[in-house]
């Protein structure tokens, strides 16, 4: 399996955020997106997840099954955690596991366990701290099998222990033949990770009428 990006161009308003970018990530590889604030990391991740439509260029997922799209095979972890504050940790997770197409309460329980949220399982998300919320959001990665993980600043407001925990999860996922792409300003402690440094391309706003 291979995620292939060919001369991708992303525009916001009239401006090019990313200009003819080409790279590929094979299964078993992790890619770190780095770059200054405003370099375009988040935008690129949204584009990979199929949420942001590129101005030009292609994003393919080869070798999984015919016309497999990244969208259907990725976990997207954005700035927000996708939690309902009135639902408990368990309720939040089990909804996602149902929706993302895998059933099994066992999965949910183990996921909470691995994210060290077991003791909070019956607590509404509203009552959780920033980092606890983030961990619960990340637990989604474990309740549904998806080969491609797209993580936007996953360690935000995680303490060191949790950050290490996340690093291990990603390593395990990659080791088992998955793909992980993470935008981050800090090292995630990944074993075999390449780095893609985004720098704002020379941009012309002439595209604007």
């Amino acid at each position: 399996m291979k995620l292939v990006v060919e001369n991708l161009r992303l525009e916001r308003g009239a401006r090019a955020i990313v200009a003819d970018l080409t790279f590929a990530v094979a299964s078993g590889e992790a890619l770190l997106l780095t770059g200054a604030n405003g370099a375009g990391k988040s935008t690129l991740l949204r584009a990979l997840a199929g949420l942001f439509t590129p101005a030009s260029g292609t994003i393919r997922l080869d070798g999984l099954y015919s016309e497999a799209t990244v969208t259907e095979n990725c976990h997207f972890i954005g700035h927000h955690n996708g939690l309902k504050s009135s639902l408990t940790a368990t309720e939040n997770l089990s909804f996602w596991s149902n929706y993302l197409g895998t059933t099994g309460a066992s999965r949910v329980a183990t996921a909470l366990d691995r994210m060290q949220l077991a003791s909070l399982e019956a607590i509404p998300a509203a009552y959780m701290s920033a980092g606890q919320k983030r961990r619960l959001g990340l637990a989604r990665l474990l309740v549904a099998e998806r080969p491609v993980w797209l993580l936007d600043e996953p360690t935000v407001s995680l303490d060191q222990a949790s950050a290490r925990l996340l690093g291990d999860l990603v390593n395990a996922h990659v080791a088992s033949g998955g793909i992980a792409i993470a935008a981050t300003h800090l090292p995630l402690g990944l074993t075999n990770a390449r780095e893609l440094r985004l720098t704002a391309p020379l941009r012309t706003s002439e595209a604007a009428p």
Partner: protein
Amino acid sequence: MMQSFLALVRRDLGLAVREGGAVGTALGFYLIVVTMLPLGLGPDLKQLGRIAPGMLWIALLLAALLSLARIFESDDEDGSLDVLATGSLPLEAVAAAKSLAHWISTGIPLTLLAPLLGLLLNLDLDAYLPLVATMLVGTPAISFLGAVGAALTLKARRGGLLIALLVLPLFIPTLIFGISAVTSIMLDTGGSRAAFLILSAISLGSLVIGPIASAAALRLQLQ
């Protein structure tokens, strides 16, 4: 597919109940507006009963309308929408599921409340049945077309009001035919059947157009 669809509908219904009786609020609003109208129109108004169907319909429209903002808003704010969009379910189905949940959690309860409020406005006895019937077939249009408004105004602060501005015009046909269907039965000046059919046609149309338009709007918003 189906599993995801049902999971989504179930969750939204659950939230509607959990998040502080959204349903209750809509019902309460309906109740208050209906009781306010006579205040404004003057209680002495003899033919209160005659205009009752109209008032009930308008108030219901407003109550349903103001609950529309809820449909996508919170999912957008907390990032759920991004994840929903990466699911196996096409965005059209997502929109449909959420519209359906809204109809079940708002349209139906309001419809069931209407006859009770009819008592307050001494509605004609033989108007109750047609009133409920027309509302049952009319309200889906509100939820499914309304969802379009909700999707369009997702990124625009000030949800409720703007949605109303956008979709109220689209509802005016529903309103006109809904009311005329009832009144024409009350004053038995035929044509009620025609109005009823047109009403259903509008609702069926909205079942199709609504989710498609909503999905289009959502895609643009997710950018």
